[in-house]
């Protein structure tokens, strides 16, 4: 079974990279360029996984995470962090119910293995 992933990042090249990577692994991928757009999409359809940058323009990644967990608590949310990840942000997002995080400073192979690890329960 292939599940649906929503990629949320405000940079198009990053979105398209995740899009390609995940489609290669046979996931169904949709993208959103802001927290607002992501919430709109989630309101319309169910996603198994939301892969979302912790730093977004507009509403922050943390706010979006909180709202997603309010509307669709069953959604698995994975946060994307930059190089200099902020431990405070990570701790807060864990409290808000994110399943894990992947860093842009990781090699692609590790990103994908982390992604699979955090979505293991969906199988």
């Amino acid at each position, binding site marked *: 079974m292939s599940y649906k992933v929503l990629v949320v990042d405000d*940079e198009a*090249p*990053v979105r398209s*990279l995740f899009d*390609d*990577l995940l489609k*290669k692994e046979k996931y169904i991928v949709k993208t959103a360029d802001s927290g607002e757009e992501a919430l709109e999409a989630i309101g319309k359809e169910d996603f198994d996984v939301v892969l979302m940058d912790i730093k977004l323009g507009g509403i922050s990644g943390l706010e979006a995470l909180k709202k997603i967990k309010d509307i669709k608590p069953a959604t698995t949310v994975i946060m994307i962090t*930059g*190089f*200099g990840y902020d*431990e*405070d942000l990570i701790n807060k997002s864990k409290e808000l119910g994110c399943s894990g995080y992947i860093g*842009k*400073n990781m*090699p*692609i*192979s590790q*990103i994908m293995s982390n992604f699979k690890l955090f979505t293991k329960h969906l199988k």
Partner: protein
Amino acid sequence: MGVRFPSPAPINMEFDTQQIRDSFHEAIDNSNAFILYLNSMGNIIACNKKIESLTGKKKDQVLGRYWLSVLYNNHGEQNLIKQHMFKAVMDDSIKYKRPNSFEGALVDSQEHEHLVSWDLTPVTEEPKGLMGMLLVGNDVTQLKDREESFKKIDNTLKNIFSNIKEYALYVTNLDGNITYYGMGSEIMFGWQKNEIVFKHISILHTLEDAASALQFIISQVNAKGEHETEIDLVKKDGQHFPVELTVSRFIDPDGKPAGYIFIAKDITERRKLEYQVFQAEKMAAIGQLAAGMAHEINNPLFVISGRMEMMLEGKRLAKKIKDNLNIMNAQTERIRKLVDRLLKFSRKTIPRLENLNINEVIEGVLPLLSYHKLPASSVEIDRVLAPNLSPVRGDLNQLQEVFINILVNAYQAMPQGGKIAIETRNSQDGFAEITIADTGHGISEDVLKNIFMPFFSTKKEGTGLGLSICYNIIKVHNGSIDIESKVNEGTTFIIKLPFA
């Protein structure tokens, strides 16, 4: 009818001698001085009212009485010696018919002590000889008190001056030869007074300053009366140190310029603090810049390396393209690691503080050294760890990183082998102090100035971030990190962390 004016009183040009005598007597009576007239036997035959303030009796009651018993009626016993001395002076005046003076304390009827300065004047009448003795006494208690307090102030000032270490006061004549070398000068310069007095002031200045700056200062003082500047002076041992120097003209009592007064304040500590603040600000600014840059590089780098990895996974890739991609991949990997370090340097990760015994942290770090690429040389590690070392609040991982960094540096400084001495102690001012000293090639002064700057490295493979990260870690622990080094002798790191 005309108005009759009263006729003017007749002008009496003669003095009314009786009236003058009366007012003179009244003035004497009310005088603030003790005035006594004794007969040749020493009995009081006349006195003014002032005596009443001493005896508490009407002046008539003392008339005819022996002078000494009247003056020393109160607490006579205690004043016996003074009485004898006074009597001896009186006897001298009587015997040789000459005036004398005497100063002594008297106690009044209210038990207050008064210091009285007496003038004794024999009254003689030829040919009868000595007729009597005039005693005039002035109460000088207040004067004396004032003198005492002046002396006290003088002594206090002398004490203050001799205890001042940051200031030196010295004076030269107009030619610049030292004529006074006081207050803190010996402590500041190391020269003793007898070694330096009459020497020229240029002995306290650097060679360059003695030629120009000193001339300039003096010309300014001559023009404006005073000049203030910051300048380096020289101690006896040749060491230079910064001072705030105030020079003013010294005028003699006739109003002629007689020399120059120098007041030097040692500002070594202030300079040190200024430098530290400057250094900290610089580091903070660089940190901000680094973090900003790293964040900007973040996304494009991620996309580039991600795309390259994807391309490399392609099955039917021409070997030449694959080789090129691998090179590009390795190089982006280098950038990735560098950006990672950069962010580590700039990150404001709040340390996870726990009570740590630094001795244990050090013991724990030593085995970790084997994971690092160290020169294959024989290095001996000496540990002198204070058994009663007070715990500090610290982040174990971060502090481990600091010690590993310094120890790896020490190893690398001794490719021919050597010794690393690690010492811990409790400092007086509430810090656990850790010194790590190697016997390596040392660091030149130029390099030392920039040692904690990010990207500053003298090593072929260094990123120049190791020590700047150490610096930041120690700073977030509210501690300090210092380095001392001598070329070909070795380098010592001194780290201070506040007690928990």
